């Protein structure tokens, strides 16, 4: 079960099983999308399966996640989505209005992201064999010239940018499950980050070393993967990381770390020091990028680890998430 939560177990599964058998041994450093060259045209391709309870929640639903998630995986690989295909696994007895709403949500999200959905497939399985509906989307994108996203290009001194406040999606889902008797004015951040990625590419171009959308496992897991792949120390200033009051409050209450909470509409970028200011300025000037922040930098030490500086002069190591984040009560 822990293998799906986006943390250590997922990484082990990919590096230990999928990469050696399916990817010709290309373990480690797997990005959000694979780069391909087809007759000299630089492309990127990706796929993602979406499973969420409840299907709809404040700020979005599984249909929007399915479109935005794949568009974002392409975007942070430095690619502009060209087309998506979608497949549905539906539980027999799923009310048709639920399916209708999700297909409309997908159409809306695809229009907003400016990418057509050009094909798909549907399977219906027996009642009880699935949790209402699963959606898988695959996308192909054109790699934007002059941008290479590669953790091995990251150097000490590089700066880390974050596109906006973290944890909105994960905490919204937690609250939407209704088990907590907690209420907050909070919405999932699901959106296409492509416009923000384009804004940063325009000013930083080849100064961009690495990008990632911190979905499952949160910012901590994404940055730990970076640390492992580049072998350097990732330094984060805790008080520079934007977190909404509602998210911070829920995390305090439940003993969770916002750095481990999922996001669906943010991305992290590592950029060369000389273009950090311009990149941050471009992000903040773009619609939806107002909350962007410079959150840290890359140093030589500690090797392959993420070190968070607290506001009080202390530091702590932040690891990948192990399994799902579980609330602490006692």
């Amino acid at each position, binding site marked *: 079960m822990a293998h799906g939560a986006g943390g250590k*177990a997922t990484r082990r599964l990919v590096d230990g099983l999928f990469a050696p058998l399916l990817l010709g041994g290309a373990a480690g450093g797997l990005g959000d999308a694979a780069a391909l060259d087809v007759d000299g045209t630089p492309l990127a391709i990706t796929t993602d399966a979406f499973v969420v309870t409840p299907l709809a929640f404040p700020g979005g639903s599984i249909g929007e996640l399915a479109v935005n998630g794949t568009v974002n995986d392409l975007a942070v690989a430095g690619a502009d989505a060209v087309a998506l295909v979608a497949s549905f696994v539906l539980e027999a007895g799923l009310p048709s209005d639920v399916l209708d709403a999700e297909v409309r949500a997908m159409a809306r999200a695809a229009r907003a992201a400016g990418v057509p959905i050009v094909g798909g497939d549907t399977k219906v399985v027996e009642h009880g064999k699935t949790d209402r509906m699963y959606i898988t989307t695959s996308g192909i994108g054109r790699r934007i010239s002059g941008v290479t996203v590669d953790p091995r290009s990251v150097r000490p001194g590089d700066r880390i940018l974050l596109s906006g406040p973290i944890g909105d999606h994960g905490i919204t889902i937690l609250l939407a499950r209704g088990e907590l*008797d907690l209420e907050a004015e909070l919405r999932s951040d699901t959106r296409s980050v492509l416009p923000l990625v384009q804004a940063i590419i325009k000013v930083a171009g080849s100064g961009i070393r690495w990008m990632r959308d911190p979905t499952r496992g949160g910012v901590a897991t994404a940055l730990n993967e970076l640390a492992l792949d580049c072998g350097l120390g990732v330094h984060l200033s805790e008080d520079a990381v934007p977190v909404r009051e509602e998210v911070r409050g829920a995390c*305090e209450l439940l003993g969770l770390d916002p750095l481990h909470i999922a996001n669906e509409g943010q991305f992290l970028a590592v950029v060369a020091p000389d273009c950090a200011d311009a990149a941050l300025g471009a992000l903040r000037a773009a619609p939806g990028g107002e909350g962007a922040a410079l959150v840290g930098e890359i140093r030589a030490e500690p090797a392959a*680890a993420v070190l968070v500086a*607290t506001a*009080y002069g202390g530091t702590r*190591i932040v690891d990948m998430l192990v399994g799902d984040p*579980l*609330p602490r009560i*006692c």
Partner: protein
Amino acid sequence: MRFVDEFRDPAVITRTCEEIRRLTDPSRHYRFMEVCGGHTHAIYRFGLRDVLPAGIELIHGPGCPVCVLPMGRIDDGLALARDPRVIFAAFGDMMRVPGAHGSPLEHKAGGRDVRIVYSPTDALKLARSNPDRHVMFFAIGFETTAPSTALTLVRAKAEGIRNFSVFCNHVTIIPAIRAILDSPDMRLDAFIGPGHVSTVIGCRPYEWVARDERKPIVISGFEPLDLLQSTVMLLRQLRAGEAKVENQYARVVPWEGNRAALAAMAEVFQLRPYFEWRGLGFISQSALRIRDEYAAWDAERVFDIPGVRVTDPKAAQCGEVLKGVLKPVQCKLFGRECTPERPVGALMVSSEGSCAAYYNYEHRKAAAALAAPA
């Protein structure tokens, strides 16, 4: 966040750290035990080790209820989950804690009906909405969570809800502190006293620590400033050659405790003659059982409990770490056989356990410091 940010103000924290440095005798080594797992977690989470002088050593005490629970109790509870009629309900804290045959989460993955609840009343709600099933709440915690279990049982009895029971693993903090102090290899100078537990029991139950054992104890809150202020208070006592109970967390902890909560506990629970603590062994009168009047809701009497006993692997040195004799990293299994993903010993199982906290927040940093050229 209101009411919290004041206790995280970097300027005030810097001033308090200066005060700590002023009060510290550089020629002396101080060994303070923070009893509560919540404190351990906060110390690592906020990086407080780094701001304290090197001469102050913080030793992580027995106050993490998940860590001190013997593995056999988890197996006992999960044995009941094999009954398809039973819904096993527990706090999220318990979900990854391994029994000899897997954790509650692994049982859930294997098809058992295991649910995470946020309070025992949620488990009772489950029982109301599933009248054809039996909901068993796996209760853990010190006096912090025991009152809510007690009130839930009072309500279950009043409403006549019969498809609900509690598998009671509640423990009490004072006997654990006594066991630590009675240990021959105990070398502590003072205690940072538990905050949440004391909201219920108050400060009086600690008076013997100061009076008989001559150890200063300061009941502390959980914010960075709380812990640093408590350190200041302990250093002042030690400087003055005093040993008394002080309440740093007075904004939450009443000196006399919470009478309503204590009354609810007295109504429902009585002391067990003895109970096993993981890492510490059997401690007399250290845990709670459900009174006869509530026997119909006591899972240990409603069901046939196998009574599993699992001895911890000999190589795991949890007891020594718990008493502060060894640091987590000095245990032979630490970070090798025993990690947060595959915990062997008690202190690696909860994120509040000293080994897990050390592993999650500290140990790679320590390793990097060792590897770095001086």
